[in-house]
């Protein structure tokens, strides 16, 4: 089955710094989803990308999907303590497929 590789597994960043999380698939994706999870809680939807080269932003978070639809990056600008948590990418291989997830990136923000 298709796998999603996320990197890095964990990240410690000084407050105010920028950071990037990556999500890579060996196969072309139909849709790519980014979620955020606070420890011990459910997942909160951030963004969905479907078109090659697509880029979306929400507040200080920007997500991009490459032209080949196999790699996505999540970029946070001027990080804040509220950005701390686990970021997970999920993807469908085709329209009728289920969403599978990567193992997540644990983000810690140092004050």
């Amino acid at each position, binding site marked *: 089955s298709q796998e999603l590789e996320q990197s890095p597994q964990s990240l410690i960043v000084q407050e105010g710094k920028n950071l990037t999380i990556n999500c890579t698939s060996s196969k072309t994706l*139909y*849709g790519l*989803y980014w*979620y955020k999870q606070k420890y*011990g*809680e*459910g*997942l*909160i*939807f951030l963004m*969905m990308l479907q078109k090659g080269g697509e880029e979306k932003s929400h507040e200080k978070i920007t997500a991009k999907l490459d032209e080949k639809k196999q790699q996505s990056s999540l970029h946070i600008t001027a990080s804040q303590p509220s950005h701390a948590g686990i970021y*997970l990418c*999920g993807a*469908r291989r085709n*329209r*009728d*497929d*289920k*969403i*599978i*997830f*990567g*193992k*997540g990136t644990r983000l810690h923000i140092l004050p």
Partner: protein
Amino acid sequence: SQTIHQWPATLVQPVGSPLSLECTVEGTSNPNLYWYRQAAGRGLQLLFYSVGIGQISSEVPQNLSASRPQDRQFILSSKKLLLSDSGFYLCACSPSGYNEKLFFGSGTQLSVL
């Protein structure tokens, strides 16, 4: 928008005991429903999904089963829990139609001792 109710929030069960986790959805009809498990070092693993009442697909062989007795009710069960069943269980739904994002419940932390 849809709301997912999942309970209990935490559960501690002895090995060999039965399990029943319930998930109910509000705000949508005929949703696709999912059970995921999140275990340390293994990420978010899809266990079961359902596209309608009585229709259950299992993604991985395991000690668990799922049922959907009503359109917006999804139940995860086990007759005898194993230590390896410990983890964080998440119920999710998407509105009917596959090209939709998932909405997640708040999860159940299950510890099997």
